[in-house]
């Protein structure tokens, strides 16, 4: 996952998934949550053909892809 740090925010820009580079565009929704006491940042991000749900674990700095929604034509 490649991100930019801007205006006090962490914005996902592109990610590698299944050997492909996926450009990420607009952040559709961003919110903070917790899983088992660990602070997490949830992002819903728009790509070219799909939207993605990605989660950033602030403790481990690991990103996880949790949702993929194919966009309508």
């Amino acid at each position, binding site marked *: 996952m490649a991100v930019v740090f801007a205006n006090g925010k962490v914005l996902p820009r592109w990610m590698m998934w299944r050997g492909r580079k996926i450009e990420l565009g607009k952040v*559709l*929704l961003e*919110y*903070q*949550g*917790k*899983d*088992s*006491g660990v602070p997490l940042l*949830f992002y*819903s991000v*728009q790509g070219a053909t799909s*939207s993605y*749900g990605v989660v950033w674990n602030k403790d481990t700095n690991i990103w996880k892809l949790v*949702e993929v*929604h*194919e*966009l*309508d034509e």
Partner: protein
Amino acid sequence: MSELNKTIIHIDMNSYFATVEQQADPCLRGKPVGVLKAQGRNCIIAVSKEAKLYGVATGSNTWEALRLCPGIILVPSDMDKYFAVTKKLIEIVKCYSPLIEVFSIDEMFLDVTSTQELFEGGATGVAVAIKERIKDEIGEWLTCSVGISYNKILAKLASEQMKPDGLFVLDRENLDKVLARIKPSCVCGIGYRMERKLQKLGITNLLQLRTLPYEYLLAQFGEHWARFLLATALGEGTDILNNMENIPEQKSVSRTFTTFRNLESKDQVKALVRNLSEEVAWKLRKMGMTGRCVGISVRGGGVSVFERRTTREEVDDGALIFDMAWGLFEGLEWRSSVRFAGVWMTNLRSSRLNSQSLIPEIKKKESINRAMDQVNNRYGYFSLYPGRLLGAETARPEPNGFLGDKKFLFG
């Protein structure tokens, strides 16, 4: 009601849960969406504005919704997500006044009487700015209806006037005109039964209520409702907010749960009651409180009952709460299956007021609870739980739409 002429803004998020889902997933936008309490449940707890056009309403069953709108997309709710978005809303609203009341997960009041002059356009300017910031900072699909008036009840009625994405000012000049088009049941607190009774008296809108003398209303509805109805008809009501910074002490702590299917065996019901008791105890300890009155409510087979018991001891231990709750359940001699159960504690007070026990068993229990809480606070609730719940389906804590436990969530 204060003597000052206050300016209260009411913000009501439109089709909140459904629009948050549409914001997160663009495939859902512009389509009829119903939000289910959980996957596999039948009750729709929120519908998108597109689904509303088909007549699907909040509270509909899935079969009802699919009959009215065969193309409806049903998604499970994610209360943690909605509550996280609500916290972002609060952060925006806080910029315009320190006096905020979070009324529910999708509604809040703010008192801008003394801050409106700081912003261009006064109260209306604040409302427009909040609407824009919600779109810019949270998501463009999220809309809200805003009502501005001089007390809370009128501000809430004002926000109902233009939906979705509206802004309405209800002042003394347009009060009569607006009240003449509002049905009594639009007022928070007036239910179906009272509206039916009012209809029989020829009252179909709030303005008409003024024609009924107080004594007549008193005879019909009792003192509380007579006063409330007349005050509402005259545009009177409280303008004092239950401020975020000053949330009153919690009077009770509860956890209710509607099961996915009927619980037929006593062991299943026992596990559920233990689960709910543990959550109530955990909430009490987290708030530093203990309680003396335990209650249980059970529904199933068309029967709904509740029972409570008060003890002399101050309690914040899940096993003790369970023992009392289960004793109450046994006393009910329940014969049918169970579809809903709730456990609650009242008569609460700060645990700091309790004297420390010298009895070794109690001290041991307290230290076990402390250790369990530390693990669960670090690794998540139910990381450690009583052996009796091993293998049982567990109901994990989540905020509810009414935010009934504000002290626990924000305190």
